[in-house]
């Protein structure tokens, strides 16, 4: 789709050059994969800043910390041995079922976060992994993903560029799961959900539950997490946690699905994700 107001195409060789343009031109936008920018630009775009020369495309693992460059594509996330190993591969799985191979070969993790669609697939698994977003261009270096989204397609980014996403591999006995429901398995999510549980001494030491697609932006369900932490996981407790997740926020309706349907999906997908995560952690339910 045409960016009708485009006046200038820049392809800077350095992050500093990219940031300079981004700050000086209020109608400039970062161009990574282009799979969101060229379809639903967030506003009038008169300058695109193509960041393809800036690298930012490595996935590294050291001491349990995984760093993913902002320009890493969905395809790469879906197939890289590091992401396939990380937390039962939930990030790879979320990336693998996003839209289509053609889109996945171009779409980037940084773009998926910066575009901040409520139904984006990468935030939920990243949220349960306590991800941090590293940014350049402002005084802050890192933003906890939990604090990153502020509204529909809105983030705390202020003329900054995402450089990396950092997660810690879960330690101890853990299990994670990702579930998504769309019209087809690679279509846009109506609702997606991710869960992570860490088990110690027979009880759930840490629980993370995240939901996308149902609310104005992807977010954790603190109520579900609190209900799980400190307790032995049983089928009844998972039922209760899924219900709490459903009640965390009122679900939104749109042309793809009604609020009632999304609310129902939250409960079902959280329940499935928790069950699969628990089983993967070796819990007998």
């Amino acid at each position, binding site marked *: 789709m045409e*960016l009708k107001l485009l*006046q200038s195409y820049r392809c800077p060789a350095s992050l500093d050059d990219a940031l300079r343009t981004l700050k000086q031109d209020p109608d400039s936008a970062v161009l990574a994969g*282009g799979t969101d920018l060229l379809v639903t630009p967030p506003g009038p775009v008169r300058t695109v800043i193509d960041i393809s020369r800036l690298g930012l495309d490595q996935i590294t693992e050291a001491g349990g910390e995984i760093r993913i460059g902002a320009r890493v594509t969905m395809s790469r996330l879906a197939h890289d041995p590091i992401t396939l190993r990380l937390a039962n591969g939930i990030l790879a799985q979320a990336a693998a079922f996003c839209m289509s191979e053609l889109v996945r070969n171009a779409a980037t993790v940084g773009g998926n976060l910066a575009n901040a669609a409520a139904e984006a697939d990468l935030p939920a698994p990243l949220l349960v992994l306590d991800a941090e977003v590293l940014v350049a261009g402002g005084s802050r270096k890192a933003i906890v993903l939990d604090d990153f989204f502020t509204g529909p397609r809105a983030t705390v980014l202020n003329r900054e560029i995402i450089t990396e996403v950092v997660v810690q591999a879960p330690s101890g006995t853990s299990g994670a799961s990702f579930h998504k429901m769309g019209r087809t398995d690679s279509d846009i999510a109506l609702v997606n959900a991710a869960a992570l549980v860490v088990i110690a001494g027979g009880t759930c030491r840490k629980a993370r539950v995240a939901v996308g697609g149902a609310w104005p932006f992807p977010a954790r369900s603190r109520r579900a997490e609190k209900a799980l932490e400190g307790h032995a996981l049983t089928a009844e407790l998972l039922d209760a946690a899924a219900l709490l997740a459903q009640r965390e926020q009122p679900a939104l309706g749109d042309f793809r699905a009604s609020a009632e349907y999304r609310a129902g999906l939250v409960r079902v997908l959280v329940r499935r994700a928790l069950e699969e995560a628990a089983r993967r952690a070796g819990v007998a339910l």
Partner: protein
Amino acid sequence: MSTPKSPNPSPPQPNPGGFLTPPAAPVTVHAVVNGKPVEYMAGLRETLMDLLRREGWAGVKNGCETGECGACAVLMDGVPKASCLILAAQAEGRTITTIEGLGTFEALHPVQQAFVDATAIQCGFCTPAMVLVAAALLKENPHPTEADVRQAFDGVLCRCTGYVKPVEAVLACAARRPAESGGTPERQVP
């Protein structure tokens, strides 16, 4: 840019600009297209799809302009991508392959031949994209499963065939190749 004020999650955003838009200076794009170095003049706002079609590569089809149908698929440095989501300017220094670069009437690419043999072509509109995507798949995975082939086609919408014959064609093409000596093929990820 101001952030959207709508309370609804991700409403379809109108592309600002309206009917009358200010002119923009053209760009020169140097690339290798179907094996030949080219220097194209492109509109700043043109997508790679529009540029390629204007330069005569009509095998690149315009089906949706939003990256959802796959008819505009090209190989960019060997990787299948939707050319409608790439600005022409982004092709600078890249290698582009369209269906015209894959095979000719005199010398069909093996995947093209397989499509013909399997009668996998009906209206033919999605066929260039299917063939390109299948060729790219077989290059990195010479012995795909049916699931692999179906996943490769997940970005190319076909209203005619139900994917039955195209999938058969790709599997038949793979079966005709000499068997690998062993080990799993190295997957090149974009």
